[in-house]
């Protein structure tokens, strides 16, 4: 059977010395000479053009100004440009957009996909996670201040182990699922989360799939089962915690209100007799833990505590004095909500704790906003075992933390997560920079130089332009891992600025003789519709919201109940890392854009935005808003025919809303040319 354990021996070592392209040392190639030197804007173009010239293909002309401007805005900030009176030079506009706070939102999204961010637990309960946003907020802010990618990464992988700790950043690894289903073995789901972290780490930074190695030696790539569990061991010791993470300005007001809050809460709890009852309940829970099978009510109560409240058993086993503020509050809140499990119905009704719960909730609202973050911290010194067939119930021999044998050795005796993080950015590491520049390239061209951006292993595709990939990787490292430098470089190239239209000889367009047409991601479609209608709330960062007109990335995202709009337009639900979204084109998308009230609202708002004037003036303005270009004569004719046919039945605003809605439904609106 395939799942039977392979013998470790040969596979790992043989491939470790393999000539697979992605593990070769990184060197900066010299940009090749080209005949049409006048087309070249920067070295990127030399690599692209040299290849095209070899094939006898000429590159495309630069896209027209309006197309280029719309492309630049959508790519950098995820919103289309608005009509402006004065034309800004390309370079100046680029700098303005790189400095925009929306840049951080646009470029946080692919990172959120990799971390598989959502605002809920997943699994059966799929409970809301009120604090997940805090890590997202940090990502947006870090990208906006151009935190170099090495630091950006190290803080997320091991921010807790830095001399100046950054706990919030470790929230990257808190986007794992939490199972609160009764009867589950908490260890099983702790192990699942560690496996998820291992897989997410290797996908995000190494573009290697390690999951298969969990049960057996990876069939094709230089990853043995031993390798896998060595990597796993880095994450196995870390504990999940919630910590204070106030935003600037929150602290003062909160401290002021806090002492009053504590006094009021304690008085309330005292009035309902909570502390005494909780004390007895905790003792009984501990007794039950020691004698399972005697009292079924209590068995079930204990079981629920272990699963429904993460770390619940551990809190009960910690003395009151040693519990931190969250632990005690979490446990008390849990106790109040679940005490009735071990009480006859009449008695729990007599307690009147429903009223207490209401008052406690009201009291919580008296506190000014206070941000907390989900983080990963410390090392519990938990030994890691190789698990037979990946089953947590079959621990094999102990495995020490270490990296993959096909990659440079760590050279540290007792490595921690921080060593793993720093190892990624050693000058002799062949993967990290290649993986990252390829992923940025993918966003700008719709596909990476390595098409399988999630897989740099032997089962992935080879790069179309290996020398360009290496040149970009070295340039990126030498710049000090400055992301905005990389963005500027790509966007300034003649390759990026080419037209996307009218050439059909090479459908895959792997050689980039033109730009690609790229359908916008779900989030940018809704954002753009609201934005061109003048409805978008443009505030940046902060908590997730349940509705309204904020950017789509801030809408509360439940893993099991994603908004129909997001599902229709291929946003991943957040169960696993995704670095290349599927792009589908379905009738459900058509229904969505035609009939979703949000898009109808946008169409009506657009109609109201139009200035007074004759048909053509108004139509040109509409095209300016929605497509950031002028209407052609044919388009004016098509639109005016519909308008003339309908203006008798519809009032002026509804007739224009019809035209606006049609434009919002066009393929062009959904596409970055």
């Amino acid at each position, binding site marked *: 059977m*395939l*799942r039977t354990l392979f013998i470790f021996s040969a596979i790992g070592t043989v491939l470790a010395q393999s000539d697979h392209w992605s593990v070769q040392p990184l060197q900066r190639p010299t940009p090749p000479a080209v005949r049409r030197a006048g087309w070249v804007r920067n070295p990127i173009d030399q690599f692209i053009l040299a290849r095209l010239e070899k094939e006898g293909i000429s590159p495309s002309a630069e896209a027209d100004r309006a197309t280029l401007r719309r492309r630049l805005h959508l790519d950098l900030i995820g919103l289309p440009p608005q009509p402006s009176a004065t034309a800004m030079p390309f370079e100046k506009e680029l700098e303005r957009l790189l400095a925009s706070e929306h840049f951080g939102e646009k470029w946080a999204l692919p990172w959120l996909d990799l971390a598989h961010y959502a605002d809920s637990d997943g*699994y*059966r309960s799929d409970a809301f996670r009120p604090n997940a946003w805090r890590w997202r907020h940090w990502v947006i802010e870090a990208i906006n201040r151009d935190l170099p990618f090495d630091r950006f990464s190290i803080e997320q992988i091991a921010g807790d182990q830095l001399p100046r700790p950054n706990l919030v950043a470790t929230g990257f690894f808190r986007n794992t699922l939490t199972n609160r*289903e009764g*009867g*589950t073995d908490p260890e099983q789901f702790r192990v699942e989360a560690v496996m998820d972290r291992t897989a997410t780490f290797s996908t995000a930074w190494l573009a290697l*799939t390690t999951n*298969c190695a969990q049960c057996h030696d990876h069939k*094709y*790539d230089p990853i043995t089962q031993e390798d896998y569990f060595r990597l796993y061991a880095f994450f196995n010791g870390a504990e999940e915690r919630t910590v204070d993470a106030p935003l600037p300005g929150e602290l003062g007001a909160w401290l002021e209100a806090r002492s009053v809050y504590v006094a009021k809460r304690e008085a309330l709890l005292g009035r309902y007799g909570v502390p005494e009852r909780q004390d007895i309940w905790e003792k009984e829970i501990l007794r039950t833990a020691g004698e*399972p*099978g005697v009292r*079924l*009510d209590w*068995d*079930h109560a204990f079981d629920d505590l272990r699963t429904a409240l993460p770390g619940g058993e551990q809190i009960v086993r910690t003395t009151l004095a040693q519990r931190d503020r969250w632990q005690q509050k979490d446990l008390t809140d849990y106790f109040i909500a679940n005490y009735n499990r071990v009480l006859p119905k009449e008695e729990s009704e007599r307690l009147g704790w429903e009223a207490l719960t209401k008052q406690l909730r009201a009291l919580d609202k008296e506190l000014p906003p206070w941000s907390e973050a989900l983080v990963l911290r410390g090392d519990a010194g938990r030994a890691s075992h190789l698990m037979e067939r990946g089953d947590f119930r079959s621990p094999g021999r102990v495995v020490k933390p270490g990296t993959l044998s096909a990659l440079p050795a760590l050279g540290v005796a007792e490595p921690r997560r921080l060593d793993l993080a720093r190892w990624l950015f050693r000058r002799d590491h062949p993967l990290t920079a290649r993986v990252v520049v390829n992923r940025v390239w993918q966003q700008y061209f*719709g596909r990476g130089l390595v098409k*399988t951006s*999630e*897989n740099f292993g032997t*089962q992935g595709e080879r790069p179309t332009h290996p020398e360009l990939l290496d040149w970009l990787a070295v340039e990126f490292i030498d710049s000090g891992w400055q992301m905005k430098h990389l963005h500027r470089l790509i966007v300034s190239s003649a390759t990026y600025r080419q037209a996307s*239209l009218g*050439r*059909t000889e090479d459908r*895959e*367009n*792997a050689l980039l003789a033109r730009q*690609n*047409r*790229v359908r916008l991601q779900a989030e940018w479609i809704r954002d753009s519709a609201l934005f061109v209608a003048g409805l978008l709330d443009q505030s940046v960062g902060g908590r997730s919201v349940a509705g309204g007109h904020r950017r789509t990335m801030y809408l509360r995202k439940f893993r099991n*109940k994603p908004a*129909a709009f997001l*599902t*229709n337009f291929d946003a991943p639900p957040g*169960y*696993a890392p995704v670095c290349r979204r*599927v792009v*589908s*084109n*379905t*009738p*459900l998308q*058509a*229904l*969505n854009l*035609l*009939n979703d*009230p949000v898009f109808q609202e946008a169409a009506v708002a657009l109609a109201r935005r139009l200035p007074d004037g004759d048909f053509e003036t108004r139509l040109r303005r509409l095209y300016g808003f929605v497509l950031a270009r002028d209407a052609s004569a*044919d*388009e004016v004719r*098509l639109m005016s025919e519909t308008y003339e046919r*309908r203006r008798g039945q519809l009032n002026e605003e*509804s007739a224009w809303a*019809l*035209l606006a809605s*049609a434009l919002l439904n*066009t*393929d*062009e609106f959904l596409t970055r040319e």
Partner: protein
Amino acid sequence: MLRRAAAGFGWLAAQRLLAQPHFPAKAERVIFLYMPGGPSQVDLLDPKPELRKWHGQALPASATKDLKLAFIKPTARAMASPRTFARHGESGIEVSDWLPHLARQADKMCLLRAMHTEAFNHDPGEMMLMSGHIQFGRPSLGSWVQYGLGEAAKNLPGFVVLTSGQAPSAGSNNWASGFLPSSFQGTPFQSTGEPIPFLGSPSGYDRALQRERIDLVSALNRHRLAATGDAEIESRIASYEMAFRMQSAAPELLDFSKESAATLAAYGVNQQPTHSYAVNCLLARRMVERGVHFVLVSHGSWDDHNDLEKNLQKNCLITDQPAAALLADLAARGLLDSTLVIWGGEFGRTPMVQHQRSDQGYGRDHHPNAFSMWMAGGGVRAGHLVGRSDDFGLQGVEDRVGVHDLQATILHLLGFDHLRLTYSHQGRNFRLTDVHGEVVKKVLV
């Protein structure tokens, strides 16, 4: 030619990607009567008279030593079923008195009594049954079927989901497309109100105005198509036409006015407590008549840890009559021969008692080792038993059928070799049955 590069993954392109059937199909479509939560086979489909001798006592340790259960210990007391079982039809299949209508259809069923699965909790169990893997993220059974069979319905999605009662625990993961293109995911239909999200035109848009809007969009898109030559735009124009047809086909589907009074009565439409499940069963028939390939009809929850007597009876009263009427109706219309009907949940329930709350009645725990499901219709041996569990119903002892075997068999009936229906993702060829599964020959005609 498969194309899913920069310009996107077109709906038409997705249709072109479909696998070709590997051999002639016995069934052309599937109706899965999904019973999430774990229906109690001991009380419904797998009589265990031996339990009466052990009622109230722990079962022999030799029989229970390897059991891994969710809540109770293997030493929990046995609980004999209070139900009476009788033989039905020519096949003489024994069915409990709580399924009187289905009992009359016994000669149409192939009853599997030694089903087993790897998972003993709901989410992983549902995922095993519906995607072949305990974790989320793989394509669902219905999506694989779509991937294999492609779009047949001209006016409706090919994979539709109908739910009543409590939704399955793992929610939409039961019909997700995983790494398959999203056009293969199940489309949930609501039986009341708007059946698909955004199906209804905005207020003020009658059918003529909607048509005019779509015509204008298509004219603008054709204009763009001429400028770009990008076939993705053709796909988009086609998808708007399909959307428009769906807008009228879906309400027509929900309109039962042309169904006879006898049919409505047979299903239990407009009767209680059957109404909502009856509507879904009748809709399932109307959908397969209109070319839908896979209808998932879910009713939950059967997770009777407490008060089993009361809850199980309630679910039987809701589902028995409509499910039986569906089988009879499909047969009467000549559709059963080409339609595969499957009944069951992610696992069964223990022969031992669970009593977790003193103020509630007895129940049973999750039981993954030996539970029952039935299949009927296209290519399935009718009036037949496959598999036997031991005298206590703890383990399968003859013709055990794992979830992957069931999946391999379903694909086989649809004309696909489960080993060859694969999709390449992240450097691996994935299939529904993971690295397992064998077609259960005894199920086949």
